């Protein structure tokens, strides 16, 4: 099923011609309307008509989150406030939030992007959808909300928190689709069982539209098993538009971009050089259609790779792999780059422990002490200490294989680690800087 079939299955040559035309226009539009870009583009001497092919994009300047912060709040808006109809902002865990503005056309484009991905994931007008993202400045909830209404689905804006009420409504309404973060989906299933509901039998949720944080295949399997549902991943960020930048179809072999609106590239985070198809690196996105808040070559900090092959679903737009991690989330331990998702993928393959974890880093006698707290679930190991020690060794060994580091594994009691409704904070870094 498609939402905008002509565009989603467009011949690649035709799509690339469209992208090139839009890119040329974008460069001049940014130059004329955003002082930040005028300065940068004037310095490099690039104008729209100098761009002859899509690969010329590499000569354009990169934009970072820092640039947006430096222009807080409205410095990078390309339209006057009379044309801006909505403002969103990122969570901004450190310092000022990044603020973005939308024109009416932007909102329409956004809704259509979300509609594309939810239809590709299998949602339809027959669905009742519960949105467990927090409503507010965050783009996740409203993005999915309007995109789902757009296809005629029934949207229940439950927002985040009050998990038991969520579950009650889910049962009473016969909700069929859940929108949430992967970790909240797991948490909800836990709570459901606590209050005597079996999500597989007592609830009708058949599809999960998961996003806002990474989800490994192993975690997805756990979620699907706990709920008895089909789960898909989608991707986006408020700077770019919100959710709707890319999403999985039912074949789940990568997340399809809305490539007519978002032009993807991969670069090396250190050298900033462009990387080819299939190469792992940082995702950089240029917004081809946005009016209120256009971005040229925005560094997402997300690590992934691109695939331009036509998908079995018929879509021709490029796909990205599930993100391996964020270059921001990447922690350097004893000189080794570690992504929390790597740790997650090890843990979900070990049934004796739960999927929640906490990484604790400390400086002990000038070296890094790397510990991982994990919840023990399997009571049969309590017969002998050696069994618990064996489990700790098994986990440490698997971590060693995946990370190249040997963490100390601490077993903790079930449900003693904090659960997160939004983005999970799993690293406690107490190292001396």
């Amino acid at each position, binding site marked *: 099923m498609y939402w905008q079939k002509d565009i989603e299955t467009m011949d690649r040559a035709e799509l690339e011609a469209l992208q090139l035309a839009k890119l040329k226009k974008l460069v001049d539009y940014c130059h004329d309307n955003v002082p930040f870009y005028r300065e940068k583009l004037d310095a490099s001497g690039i104008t729209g008509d100098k761009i002859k092919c899509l690969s010329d994009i590499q000569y354009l300047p990169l934009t970072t989150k820092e640039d947006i912060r430096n222009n807080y709040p409205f410095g990078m808006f390309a339209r006057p406030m009379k044309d801006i109809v909505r403002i969103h902002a990122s969570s901004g865990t450190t310092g000022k939030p990044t603020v973005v503005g939308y024109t009416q056309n932007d909102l329409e484009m956004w809704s259509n992007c979300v509609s594309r991905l939810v239809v590709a994931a299998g949602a339809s007008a027959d669905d009742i959808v519960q949105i467990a993202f927090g409503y507010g400045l965050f783009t996740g909830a409203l993005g999915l909300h309007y995109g789902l209404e757009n296809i005629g689905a029934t949207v229940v804006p439950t927002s985040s928190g009050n998990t038991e009420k969520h579950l009650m409504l889910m049962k009473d309404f016969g909700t069929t689709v859940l929108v949430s973060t992967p970790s909240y989906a797991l948490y909800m299933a836990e709570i459901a069982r606590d209050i005597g509901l079996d999500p597989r039998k007592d609830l009708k949720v058949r599809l999960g539209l998961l996003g806002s944080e990474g989800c490994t295949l192993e975690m997805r399997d756990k979620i699907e098993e706990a709920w008895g549902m089909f789960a898909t991943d989608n991707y986006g960020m408020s700077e770019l538009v919100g959710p709707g930048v890319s999403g999985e179809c039912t074949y789940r072999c990568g997340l399809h971009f809305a490539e007519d609106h978002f032009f993807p590239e991969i670069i090396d985070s250190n050298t900033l050089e462009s990387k080819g198809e299939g190469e792992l690196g940082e995702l950089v996105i240029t917004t081809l259609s946005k009016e209120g808040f256009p971005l040229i070559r925005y560094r997402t900090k997300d690590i992934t790779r691109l695939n331009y092959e036509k998908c079995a679903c018929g879509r021709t737009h490029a796909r990205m792999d599930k993100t391996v991690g964020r270059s921001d989330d990447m922690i350097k331990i004893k000189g080794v780059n570690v992504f929390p998702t790597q740790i997650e993928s090890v843990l979900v393959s070990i049934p004796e422990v739960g999927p929640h974890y906490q990484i604790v880093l400390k400086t002990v006698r000038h070296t890094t002490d790397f510990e991982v707290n994990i919840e*023990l*679930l*399997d*009571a*049969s190991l*309590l*017969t*002998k*200490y050696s069994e*618990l*020690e064996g489990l700790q060794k098994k986990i440490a060994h698997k971590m060693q294989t995946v990370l190249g580091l040997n963490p100390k594994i*601490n*077993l*903790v*009691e*079930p*449900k*003693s680690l904090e659960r997160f409704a939004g983005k999970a904070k799993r690293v406690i870094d107490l190292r001396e800087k």
Partner: protein
Amino acid sequence: MIIKQISIFVENRPGRLAEITDIIAQNGINIRALSIADTTHFGILRIITEHTNQVEEVLKKNDLTVSITSVISVCINDKPGGLSSVLHVLADNDIQIEYMYAFVSDSKKDDAYVVMRIEDDLRAQEILKAHGFYGLEIDE
């Protein structure tokens, strides 16, 4: 002689043991014997009570990791050589003890009990009974 023991996974932090025993106390359950050993971060608390299934249920409700194991209880003379007489019988029959703990039941009677975890507890029971030993009989 063969009785049920509850094992509970306990994190090492101040007050945790008190919290767990509170849960048991609030349910009006008396602990007959217990043992706890620890590593740096956690310990396994082992408890003998007359209400094993009820204790398991309330602890699980409180999100604790709990399991039930069978162990052997043996009554010994609370005087020099009392324990070694039992251990000799087991050693002579090549029976290994994984862990054990002891408690005194009534000082006036010169009786004490040892609780032992043995892999083949049925065989151990048979041999010990043949040597005239007896243990606790707990009916739920």
